Every structure is written in structure tokens, then in C-alpha cells.
């Protein structure tokens, strides 16, 4: 497969997952904004920008972190390359370039999202409630994902798509957790209070894992259980361990398909066994924020290695 084709497929997946992350961030933000704040007036929206990694661009363009501006930035604004709108546009453009490597169902799902997006953009903003926008985004992301799973040939292209999905998803789960731990609760006093639990629950909802969590653990929602669920539990579809195992699986399949073992695969295998060997206590000992930062950095390194190994055309 051409490296450029592989790159297009990989980026379709990353952009679709990124659109979903932006929508999930907006959902977290909206729920948190409905909370009575403990410290009198406190603006929670800016924490989302930190999680999305795009606070600088936002400050330059809007300045004031109020809901409407954040909504514009994270959903509509094409200047923000991680906004829902920009991500879906990019995913569809990548899809158009490799149209023949996709089934018509996958293409229709990508193109359908794009066409509806253009209609949404023409409507007056007052008609678009935030919850409808986030729900719309997640539905279309699921449709693309479903079309890929249901119709695509299980060849190298399928592996590159999945590699993109798992890499982006691991990164975004780590970022979403980091919002909660690092930004929303800078003071240790809140840990373990009711306010804290409410926000943890909100995070679970944003990851569509609220019910799943109760199925898996039951009882009181605690920081320890949630960290375990979102990092170490292979049953959770968005946990870090699931994402790393997914990357490892698809990299392994590529290495086997091409008959070429890679350093990239070795490194992901090592990462998987490291996480498998962790307990929640070990993570809290290191510091959740420190652990997440390390994970996000590791993901960035892996993304660079994916590029060097498969997408640049000079195999090492």
C-alpha cells in the first residue's frame, strides 16, 4: 500500500475520533456548568481548553472563555484544527483522496456527516442546542466507525484505520481525565468530597461509561475506582489499556502481514506490559497527573514513530 494512502486512512480515523473528543469535552463542560460552584463564581469552561490543548489559539481569537465562545471554538471554528467541524472536514477530505480504498458505505458515512455539517452551519445558532450538537457528532462518528467495522476488508488499510482510532482515543481519554484531576481540582481539599464525586460522574458520562462503570464496580464512586476503570480495566472500551492493546494488536498484524518486525511494535508491546503490571495505588503514588502527562507524551512519540515507520515510505 502507498504510504500516502496509509496516511490518509490513519488520519481519517484520527480526525473522526478527534471530532468525538471535542464533542465529549463540550458535554463535560456543559454538565459541569450546571453545577453550583463551591467557590462562588468560578469559570469551568477554560479548563476544557486546556484539555483540548488549544488554549492559546482560543485566547488570541476570543479571549473571554464563556460558553458561546467555547462552543464556537470547539464545534464550529475551522481555525481550530481540532474542532468538530474542522475534524469532520479533514476526515472527509482524506476519505475523498482515498475514495477507492474505502467501501461505499464508509464513504457515504463520511460524506453524509460532511453534508449535514454544512446544513448545521447554515442554521442560526440559537436553534442549535449544545446537547443536540454533541449528540449529532457522536452519532456520526459511530456511523463511520460502524461502516468500517461492518464492510471494510481486513487488509493493511483496516489496520491503519484502527491504529489511528486507538492512538487518538488513548490520547483523548488521558486528556479528558487530566481535565478533571489537574485543572478542575487544583486543591487537594476537594478530593473525596461530594463535589469531587459529582464531577467524576460527569466525566464518566462524557465517556459514555457511566452505566458501564456501575455494572463493573457498583457501590460508591471513588477516584480510585474510576482511575482503575479508565486506565487499567480492559473491559472499558476507552481505557488506556484497551487503546494500547488495540494499537499493539494492529501493529502486530501489520508486522506479520509485511513480514517486518518494527521497533514501533516492540515499544508498544513494552508499554502494554508496563500498564498491565500497574495497580491503581502505583498510579496514585506516581501522581495521576504525572502519569497521564507521561502517557500523553508517550503517545506523541508513538505517533511520530508510526509516521517514520509506515507513512514516510523509508522503512527503517
Amino acid at each position: 500500500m502507498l504510504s500516502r494512502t496509509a496516511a490518509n486512512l490513519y488520519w481519517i480515523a484520527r480526525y473522526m475520533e478527534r471530532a468525538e473528543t471535542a464533542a465529549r469535552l463540550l458535554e463535560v463542560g456543559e454538565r459541569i456548568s450546571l453545577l453550583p460552584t463551591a467557590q462562588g463564581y468560578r469559570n469551568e469552561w477554560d479548563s476544557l481548553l486546556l484539555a483540548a490543548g488549544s488554549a492559546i489559539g482560543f485566547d488570541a481569537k476570543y479571549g473571554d472563555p464563556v460558553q458561546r465562545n467555547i462552543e464556537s471554538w470547539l464545534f464550529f471554528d475551522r481555525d481550530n484544527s481540532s474542532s468538530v467541524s474542522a475534524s469532520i472536514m479533514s476526515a472527509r477530505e482524506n476519505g475523498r483522496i482515498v475514495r477507492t480504498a474505502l467501501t461505499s458505505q464508509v464513504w457515504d458515512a463520511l460524506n453524509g456527516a460532511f453534508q449535514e455539517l454544512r446544513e448545521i452551519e447554515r442554521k442560526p445558532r440559537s436553534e442549535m442546542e449544545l446537547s443536540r450538537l454533541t449528540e449529532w457528532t457522536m452519532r456520526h462518528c459511530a456511523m463511520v466507525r460502524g461502516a468500517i467495522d461492518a464492510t471494510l476488508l481486513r487488509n493493511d488499510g483496516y489496520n491503519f484505520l484502527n491504529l489511528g482510532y486507538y492512538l487518538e482515543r488513548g490520547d483523548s481519554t488521558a486528556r479528558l481525565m487530566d481535565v478533571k484531576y489537574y485543572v478542575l481540582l487544583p486543591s487537594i481539599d476537594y478530593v473525596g468530597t461530594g463535589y469531587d464525586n459529582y464531577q467524576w460522574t460527569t466525566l464518566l458520562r462524557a465517556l459514555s461509561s457511566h452505566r458501564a462503570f456501575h455494572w463493573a464496580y457498583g457501590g460508591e464512586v471513588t477516584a480510585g475506582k474510576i482511575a482503575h476503570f479508565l486506565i487499567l480495566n480492559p473491559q472499558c472500551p476507552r481505557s488506556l489499556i484497551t487503546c494500547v492493546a488495540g494499537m499493539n494488536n494492529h501493529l502486530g498484524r501489520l508486522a506479520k502481514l509485511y513480514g517486518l518486525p518494527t521497533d514501533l511494535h516492540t515499544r508498544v508491546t513494552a508499554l502494554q506490559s508496563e500498564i498491565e503490571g500497574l495497580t491503581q495505588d502505583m498510579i496514585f503514588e506516581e501522581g495521576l497527573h504525572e502519569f497521564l502527562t507521561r502517557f500523553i507524551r508517550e503517545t506523541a512519540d508513538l505517533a511520530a514513530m508510526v509516521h517514520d515507520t509506515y507513512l514516510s515510505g523509508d522503512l527503517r
Partner: protein
Amino acid sequence: MISFGSASKLERGIKQRARALNAFLVDVYGRGEIVRAGRIPARLVYRNDAYEKAVVGFVPPKGVYSHIVGIDLVRTGPEDFFVLEDNCRTPSGVSYMLENREIMMRMFPTLFRENRILPIDNYPEILRRTLASVAPLKCKHDPVVVILTPGHFNSAYYEHSFLADLMGVELVEGQDLFVQGEFVYMRTTEGPKRVDVIYRRIDDAYIDPLCFRADSMLGVPGLMDVYRSGGVSICSAPGAGVADDKAVYTYVPEMIRFYLGEEPLLKNVPTWKCAEADDLAYVLDKLGDLVVKEVHGSGGYGMLVGPKSTKAEVEAFRGRILANPGKYIAQPTLALSTTPTFVEEGIAPRHVDLRPYCLVGERIELVPGGLTRVALKEGSLVVNSSQGGGVKDTWVLAE
């Protein structure tokens, strides 16, 4: 719709023409016998903008310069076919031919059941075979064929990806290829992979910034060196354009006699070359009755259809011809055949032409059909899609 008899007569004529055009190209980049024999003016060949000095003395594999020859035909009477022009570079539109047939078969299955319409859907396979048959000398394995596209912003990108898909070959951009040593490679997920035959859909000027336009971002630096040393084949070969301008066109019957020793089976439209004084005088005299075209024009631009133009337009064009007569040729306005066409006011006659695609490799092959282009404006003779023309499926009926 074309009867089997007419179609096989056309087929012989088209193949003959494709053979002569390729013989001409090999000759003018070699010893130039036809020029020495005084059968075609040297100026027309060697001072032609499309004449590539970079390939002088080079004979491409199997002696083929133009691998896909699109020959535009018109009909003026029951068996009166004329060649309007030859396209030796990279004629487009073949995806329309294939898609039209798919749509017709889906919409009118009974017509296909009741009539014996010859199939054309093996075109991509024949094209792939043709391209593989001109693999370069240094290729000792099953040749790797690719299509080189300018990219997804190009208006014909759909056709490029459509063909690549049906042929089962990679669709590459310039950035996907690189030259190392004696060969061209593409960047793949399994590392560099050697490429043997490039069906390029970009112009000569852009294929190699080291050899042609230095500002080209579409091409592959060093490609021409590999090409000339037999490491890769380029289809159509750089320089093929010298055979298809509208002034050289008038000499094609001469080429057929000179190289093949045969009489042309297909007629040219009588053409006056404004570069010649007698012809120019005649053209200026009859300007209102003629069709005048630029020698290097294409896409239906820069032309005058005398009978359909106002006096002022004719006079303005007269000025342009006088300013640079060598740039123009003139032809009589033909009574082009029409076909029933569904337009706004219902079904009405509209003028058409036909472009069959002749594939030249180890063998010369033609699928029974082609692209019928139709001028959708009433009375218009300009069928180019860039000028609002449409397309139709074309049937050859089995005996």
C-alpha cells in the same frame, strides 16, 4: 449506435492511423526521414512547441510514443466518417464511456437483452495489459504499473482514481515517487517499491523539474534520466504531443502513405493552413462560412464557428488571424450528424462526435464503443464538456 460493419471499418481506419502516428513520432525523434523526403515541412515539426529536444534519439519500448490514441470522429452521411482531430497525449473521458454503459445497463436492461450490444467493460484490463507490454528494457519481472495524477484538486481526479481502481494499480502523486540510482520507486508502507511503467496524467512540462519546468511540484526529479536509460516507461512518452496539433493533423494521410505504404481508410476534414499564403487568402475570403481553430487549442476554446457568429465576432477574429496566421487552421462547417437527446423542451436532435480510444502496446486494440460527446445547446457544434457538452453511451451492435 453503430452497426458492426461500420464499426469494423472504423476500427481498421483508427488502428492504421495510430500506427502511422507512432511511426511518425519515432521518425521525427530519430532520423527524420519524412522531413528529409520533403513530405512535411521541417518548421512544423522541429519548431513545434510540443517537440521535446530532451528525447531526441530515444526510442521508447516497442517503438510506441502514444499508447492511448483518442481519435475524434464525426459523421456527415450514412457512411461518411471524418477524423476531426487526433489526441496522442493523454485523452480523457474514458471513465464516462465506462460509467455511461453501467448506468444504461442498470436503467434499460431489456434493451441490452433484446439487442446484441458488444461489451466494453474489459477496457481497464486491456489498458493494463497494454501498459505492461511496454515495460522498460531493464524490467525483468512482472512490471509494476502506476497512474500518476496531479492530485485530488485536478478536475479529472475522479477518472484517474476510477481507472486505477478498475486496473488494480496504485494511483500515485509526484511526491509518492522518487528516483534512486537507475530506477524509480514509490513510497509504500513496506518500504520503497520499484515502479516500471508510469501512465502519467500530467503534462510533459511538469513531469520532471530537473528536465522541464523547474517550478513543477507535480513531477519527480530525475525521472527523465531514468526514462532515457531504460529504467522506467512513461505513457504517453514525453514528446508525443508533436503528432497531435491541428497543423500536423493535415499531414496524417501523408504519414500513412509514407510509413505504411497504404491508402488512408479514414478521411481527414479538408483543412486550410493559414500559414500558407493561398490558403490564408481563401480563409479570409470565406471566413463567415468556415470553422477556424488555433493550432494548439483544445477544449473548444479560441475557435470561431463562422455561420454561428455575428459579423462583429467574425471581424474581430479576422484581426487575430492576420496578426499571427501560423497559429490558425480553418475547416469547412460540416453538417454533423445528430442524435435524439433529452433536453429541456423534450427530445430534440443535437450534434455529436465520437471518440474511440485506441490502445497501442505490443498489440493495437480497440474496445467496440467510445465516448459520444453531444453539444447540448441547440444548433451548437461545440461538444467539449468544458463548453457545456454532454456525453452518451455508444453501442456497437453484433451481427
